[in-house]
Each structure stands twice: as C-alpha cells, then as structure tokens.
C-alpha cells in the first residue's frame, strides 16, 4: 500500500506520543476529539482500549484556551466583566456573580437588597437553563435525540425571560459592582410564575419519558461510581460530589447574598454513579423553582445599584469569593495592587476539578460507559480551558 508523502511520517502529536509511551501490548489507542460528538465541543480524550474496555484514559485540554486570567491583568475591573459571561456560557450569571462578588468583597461595596434578590432570581433561572442543556446533551450522548429538543423548548421560555432583563440570551453581562444592570418588571415576574407552573408539569413528563426509562437506567446505574473519598481528593464539587452523598453546596456552606433567608434543600444521592448525578440535577431544578418562588414573594422595592466609585480601585490585598454554579463551586481569587487593573485573577472552574477524576472513573469501563460518565460530569469545555 502506498503512503501519501505528507503523512508518511508519524502524524501523532506531543500528547499522543507521550500517552502511547505507557501503552501495553495488544491494545488500541483511540483518539476521541477534539472533534467528537460526545466530547462536548473541544475536549480531547486519548484512550487505550483492550477490545472495547478502557485501560487508560487521558483528557487533553486547551483547545479553547483563551487565557482569561491574562486578560484579567490587562483590563480594568469593569472592562473584565464581559469576560465572565464567556467563561461558562451555560451558567454565565454565576460567573458574573463570582467575579462581581470578589470585587465587592475586596472593595467593600454594599449591594442593595433588591439587587441581591434579583441576582438570586436570575442566577437560579440560569441554573435551570444550564441543567436543561445538560439534560438534553447527556441524553444525546446516550443516543436519545428527542429530549434535548424538549429541554430547549423549556429553556426558550427562560431565555425569553432572561432576555427581558439582561438583553441577551446566552453570554450575560448583567451583574455590576454593587448591583445589577437593569431592574426586573412585572411582566418578568408574571412570566417567571407562569413558567414555574408549566415547568413543574414538564418535570413530571421528563421523569416519565426519560428518568424511568429502562434503557436509560441501565446506561446510568452503577456507571462511573465515584466514592466520597475520591470525589474529595479530586476536589469535585457541585452535583458531582452531591451525587456521592455529600451535601456540599456553597449556597449553604458559605452562604452569600440572601440565600440564608431562603428555604431550599440540597438534594443528595449516595450511590455516586451517573444516575445519582443525573437525579441530583433534576432535583436541583425543582429546588431552583422553589427558590425562585420565594424570591419573587419577598423581593423588596428599592435600588438595584449601590454606590460605587466611578473608577474602581480596590485597596491592596487579596480575596477569594466562591459561589455555587450549576457545575459546582466557582471561585475567584483576586489580588489587587491598588490600581484600576486587577493584579491577578485566578478563576477556579468547577468543571476543571470534576473532569480531572475522569481518568480514574473511566478505567475498566466500556467506551459507551466512558461517554456516559463524561456526560454525567456535566462539562463545559470553555470553562475548563478558560
């Protein structure tokens, strides 16, 4: 067989080469991604296969790395805000919040109560959006094509609602230091209430169509079992660690904003498998609905923007602020040298830690299981690569 001249040399790259060094004999090294249907965008996973069983796996990151942390050092505090909507496009408001919260904490900016309620409301709406996309995409990974469109049908309502206040539908840049950009109106509240009614029924439909589905249960149960210890060692947070039975939620653990006043539960499942993580997310959507209802009942009148200096120069020092995103703990470590530009912004992406346990989880599973595990970790690659 003739070989094409361009390809006659070894076409594998740095990562393939370093991965194949440790390969056993008679195994197949398969490169999944960065363009692969189930790696959610641009994640690349190199796996070593024995038949269809995975001997070893290694995620390769960086295909959508944008060096957000460097941009943080070059832009002023306000100018860096739009970046936050683009770190994790599915739960943009949480990232908005993490950064805005860090700056507020450092600069000692007060946030009016109404703004806090609006933040909680939009954040929870956005959380449902994020979980809906995950739900659809996960089922797509498992080969069910229809649920994602049902999920998007519901998400569309939420996007319309969020568009009313934020003006955009995906990469929100809505939070401001000391408040939010725009106030919510009555139609927003009415629409949200209508949605809550509707969505409760839809969740029942989701359960009947998918959650109880025999095939799905077989694909998720006992797949990718993550023990509490492993989850902790890898620094997993969010639904991943709650699926392992640890009720760890930043909204409760280190309460911020008005969350302490709100009544909601932290759903946990102790199985630690893909199904547990699935169930946690579904239950979380219900809890988000509860939070939204309470917030709308209690929302006070008043300002939406606190007093902030026109040119923000937080005092020298550092701060760490964490919020609970749809994927887990979002942390921003902010260092200020007293100038108008951050000295250092470190973004702690929950997906980064969650994905790092994939290599261990996927050992000895089938490719199809690996896909299921990858999906159940709920990855948003732009957030992981930053």
């Amino acid at each position: 067989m003739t070989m094409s001249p361009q390809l006659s040399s070894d076409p594998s790259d740095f990562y393939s080469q370093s991965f194949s060094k440790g390969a056993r004999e008679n195994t197949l090294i398969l490169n999944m991604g960065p363009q692969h249907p189930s790696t959610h965008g641009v994640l690349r996973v190199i796996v070593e296969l024995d038949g269809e069983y995975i001997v070893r796996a290694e995620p390769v990151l960086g295909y959508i790395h944008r060096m957000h942390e460097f941009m943080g050092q070059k832009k002023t505090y306000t100018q860096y805000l739009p970046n936050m909507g683009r770190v994790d496009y599915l739960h943009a408001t949480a990232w908005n919040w993490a950064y805005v919260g860090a700056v507020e904490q450092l600069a000692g900016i007060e946030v009016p109560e109404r703004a806090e309620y609006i933040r909680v409301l939009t954040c929870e709406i956005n959380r449902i959006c994020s979980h809906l996309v995950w739900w659809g995409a996960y089922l797509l990974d498992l080969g069910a094509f229809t649920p994602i469109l049902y999920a998007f049908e519901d998400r569309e309502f939420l996007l319309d609602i969020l568009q009313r206040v934020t003006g955009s539908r995906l990469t929100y840049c809505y939070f401001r230091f000391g408040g939010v950009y725009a106030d919510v109106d009555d139609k927003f509240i009415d629409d949200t209430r209508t949605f809550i009614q509707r969505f409760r029924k839809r969740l029942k439909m989701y359960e009947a169509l998918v959650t109880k589905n025999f095939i799905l249960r077989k694909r998720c149960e006992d797949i990718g079992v993550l023990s509490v210890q492993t989850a902790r060692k890898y620094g997993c947070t969010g639904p991943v660690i709650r699926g392992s039975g640890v009720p760890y939620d930043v909204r409760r653990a280190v309460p911020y904003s008005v969350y302490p006043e709100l009544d909601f539960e932290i759903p946990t499942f102790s199985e630690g498998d893909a199904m547990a993580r699935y169930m946690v997310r579904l239950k979380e959507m219900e809890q988000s609905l509860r939070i939204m209802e309470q917030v709308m009942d209690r929302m006070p009148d008043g300002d939406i923007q606190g007093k902030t200096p026109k040119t923000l120069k937080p005092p020298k020092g550092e701060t760490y602020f964490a919020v609970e995103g749809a994927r887990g703990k979002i942390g921003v470590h902010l260092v200020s040298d007293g100038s108008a530009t951050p000295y250092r912004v470190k973004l702690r992406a929950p997906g980064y830690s969650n994905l790092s346990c994939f290599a261990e989880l996927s050992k000895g599973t089938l490719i199809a299981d690996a896909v299921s595990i990858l999906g159940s970790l709920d990855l948003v690659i732009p957030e992981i690569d930053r």
Partner: protein
Amino acid sequence: MIPNIAQSLKAEAMVECDPKTGQAVQLRVTAEQLLPAAETLDAAGYFLEDVSGVDVQDGFELNYHFDHVQTPGRITLRLMASHDDPKAPSLALLIPGADWHERECYDFFGVDFKGHPDLKALLLEPGTEPPLIRDAKSRIPAFELSLVYPQPEPEAADDEEAKKAAAKAKAKEKAAAKAKEKAAKADEANPESAAAKPEAATDGEQAEAETPEAKPAEADKQEGAEQ
C-alpha cells in the same frame, strides 16, 4: 476564628484572616513543610480547591486553597518559589486533584513541581513561554498581599496612604527613606526576607506610577469635571 487543624500544622507563620479576604487562615510554609501540612489537611477531610500562583517581587507565590465540605473555612498554604529557579514539591501523588492544578501553574508560571508524575503542558502548547510572569517593574511585594509575610512598620503603611492622598514628590522621598530604615530594622529581626525588603519600599513608588490602563480612568474624572 482559626480552625483547630491549622494550629497543628507546622508553618513559618500563621495569621487569622479578615473575612473580606474570604479565607479563614493563611499559613506561610516552606517547601519541606508543604507536604506534611497538605497530608494533615487531607487526612482531616479537606479538599484542594485550587493552586493559584501570583507573581510577586519575592518570587512566585503559590496559594494552595483548602476547604472542608462540612466545616467551611478556607485554609491557605502559601509557598514562595523563587524567580530564578521556580520549584515546589508536588502534591499530585498525595491529592490526585492537585495534578492538573500543578500542571496549570507549570503552564502559566513555569514552576517545576518536583515529584509530579507527569508534568507537562496542560492548557498551553508545550514549550510556550509562561504567560503570567510579570515584568519586574510591575511586581508588588508579597507583604502587601498577606499578613503572613513580615510587614513593614506602621509608618510605612502611613506613608502609602500619604502617597495616595497627595502626589507630592518630596513627601514621597522622605517617606521612602523612612521606610527603608524601618525595613532594615525589621530585617534584623527577620533575616529571611532581608533581600526582599528594600525592594519593597522602593516599589511603593513604582506602584504610584500606575499601569497604563488606569490612565483613561483618571481622564474620566477630568472629563466629568468639564461637564
């Protein structure tokens, strides 16, 4: 409130933090102390949130943020890796979650983690120049970041404020001279950071000449005044 566990850790210095730093306690550790400290924390059920590198005058400061799932209260281990030969012990074998965080630091700062099982580029193209290394002028001294580093005497702090309030060159010069004296005194007590101190005082002035990005902001004020 300092968590009990922090008391039992061996460290160079330990301070309780202001709530606005978002951390409960900070510990300054040496390379030898890092692993035992991490081991104790790990055994006590803490998890590693992230490893955040900061490039300061004294070197690359590595912040190991630990948090607990039941009793929150962030414990930060701070380790200084020198600029010339940045290296630190790896936690990856002890805490597998540290693996990627360390590789990220390796990417961004070029810190060599000794004992890491597979230290190679994670987010950047292998062989890329570490992007987050600042030029020497724009670095701030470590004591401005955290109280775990020996602080200059209170006069020096006053002088910083004075600088901010009025941009009078004379006052600045005097203050800088004072700061140097104070720093020298402090260094006698604390020989370890002797090298860093004089730089620290002079850097206060450099910080005054602000980064270019800040200038438009000042222009803003003037514009606003015009109207």
